[in-house]
């Protein structure tokens, strides 16, 4: 006997006789607010903040255990969490921490925005124009798999050692990824929408704007997320190449400096910071974007 029963908050057996409206209302509220609408803080905490915190604590615990029980006692192999903390703390005291992060994040986001502006029309062209697709579709995929370091020598020679070189490397890394994400988003658009758009007179650019882009949005956002990852990684590669005093020290440079100093604590510091930035960008930008897209088309209500 399959059975679903909803216990009402006010008077368990009250379910049998209707009319208990106050209790009903409360029950409804409690139930519905889970699915949609604003959540109370406690719930957000339990559902959103607690699990990653637990995950992070678990990692830290294992790490500390590895060091404490001297399973790994060589600091060149694994620095103690306290050492890494110390390095972070020092950087914070010297007021450098936010500087590193800001330098990289501002560069990364600006480069990503450029990549967006270039990658989106490019992706649309490839997705919609047959000849363009045949001509540069595979090249785009090829470019995507070209490592950023490959671009560094030509970029330095042509542009010099400056921010434009960094942006060029970011663009070459992120544009193909964003474009490809959009292409596969467009490919997955159900033909019925394109047909409906055509009968409404949405052809050409108007069709692209009103139908293709919104319909491809879920795939596009997924592509953006990957595109951001590419931007960020390309930026790190570019920052490792050279640090110009005028340009500020970014996280990539921090990582490289750690390596140069054979300082594992510093390497871990850089890894941690890069990770934290990645997570923060995901939580602040992409997750909300994704959820908004999915919710607005009824894809968030799970079956």
């Amino acid at each position, binding site marked *: 006997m399959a059975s679903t029963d909803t216990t009402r908050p006010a008077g368990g057996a009250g379910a049998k006789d209707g009319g208990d409206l106050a209790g009903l209302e409360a029950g409804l509220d409690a139930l519905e607010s889970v699915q949609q609408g604003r959540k109370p803080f406690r719930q957000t905490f339990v559902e959103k903040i607690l699990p990653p915190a637990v995950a992070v604590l678990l990692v830290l615990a294992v790490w500390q255990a590895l060091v404490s029980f001297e399973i790994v006692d060589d600091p060149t192999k694994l620095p103690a969490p306290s050492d890494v903390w110390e390095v972070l703390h020092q950087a914070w005291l010297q007021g450098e921490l936010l500087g590193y992060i800001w330098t990289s994040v501002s560069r990364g986001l600006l480069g990503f925005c450029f990549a967006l502006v270039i990658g989106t029309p490019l992706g649309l062209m490839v997705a919609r124009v047959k000849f363009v697709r045949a001509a540069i579709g595979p090249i785009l995929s090829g470019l995507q798999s070209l490592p950023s370091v490959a671009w560094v*020598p030509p970029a*330095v*020679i042509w542009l010099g050692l400056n921010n434009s070189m960094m942006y060029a490397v970011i663009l070459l890394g992120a544009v193909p990824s964003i474009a490809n994400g959009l292409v596969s988003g467009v490919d997955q658009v159900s033909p019925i929408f394109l047909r409906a758009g055509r009968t409404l007179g949405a052809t050409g650019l108007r069709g692209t704007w009103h139908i293709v882009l919104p319909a491809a949005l879920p795939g596009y956002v997924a592509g953006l997320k990957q595109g951001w990852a590419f931007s960020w990684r390309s930026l790190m590669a570019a920052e*490792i190449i050279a640090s110009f005093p005028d340009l500020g020290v970014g996280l990539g440079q921090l990582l490289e*400096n750690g390596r140069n*100093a054979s300082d594992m604590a510093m390497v871990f510091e850089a890894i941690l910071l890069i990770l934290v930035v990645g997570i923060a960008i995901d939580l602040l930008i992409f997750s909300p974007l994704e959820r908004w897209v999915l919710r607005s088309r009824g894809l968030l209500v799970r079956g």
Partner: protein
Amino acid sequence: KDDDTAKIAAGAEKIDGLDSVRIGYFGNITHATPLVANQKGFFQKALGATEAKYAVFNAGPSEIEALNSGSVDIGWIGPSPAVNGYAKSGGKNLRIIGGSASGGVKLVVNPDRIKSLKDVKGKRIATPQLGNTQDVAFLNWIAEQGWKVDAQSGKGDVTVVRSDNKVTPDAYRSGSLDGAWVPEPTASKLVAEGGKVLLDESTLWPDEKFVITNIIVSQKFLEEHPKAVEAVLKASVDTNEWITANPDEAKTAANAQLEKDSGKALPADVLDPAWESIRLTDDPLAATLDAQAEHAVKAGLLDQPDLNGIYDLTLLNKVLKAKGKPAVDDAGLGVE
């Protein structure tokens, strides 16, 4: 594969029962000793039936990482990664067991923008990496001129640009740099681009000698297989001798090995001046290493390192003694 040289002599014996010794070096002209020794088979000859295996690196940190992970037993490396690696491991991972080269670092500048040493003020000069040997030397030189530069950021009376050696010639060409304080062959590459040598770092040192390449070994390997280490050291000393005796043949051999390792030989206009400026030495020039570390501390790039025990020159001195050469000094930094 290794058709030209590394034939294991028939009937030879394995040293210490070892199957192989893994030797690391850079595909770089300052590593002339291992390049020539590899090319001419000196290592293999010294190791007998124990196979010499090579790993070619692009940068010091990766070699230290490889040494720490046990993927490399003996390596040729610059002083700053050696010091950093030693200090950061708490003095547990490596020891310097010999020297290999001195000199070969120059300040090359764009003659249109910099005519004399005074002109360096206010210009953009590249060094390879924050806190590496050349970076420290340059910062020290700047301080000696009475100029101020913030070591971490490179901002100040001179703009110190930390730029990968691979990128520096490109950056120079694109006009982003006014000069560079770099080792060979990057310095000669810049000269080939039209740069002018403004200063040779060796002129700043007593006897015009300072260490640019050392031989390091993992402590574990040194403890377990001193015989193998000795054999490699002997090969190194022999090679240096041979190079001094046959400079032209050695140059060709080094370039051949470079081509083999990296698919590309150096052009003559880079190779010749670079080769000229490098002095081979068996002496690790311990005093200069100590001075370099001190400079780094002064620049605020290094916490006062405990370098005691970084040297173990017993085996080297044994090899030198057997050859009737004078012993070398560890400047008080040897193992007790």
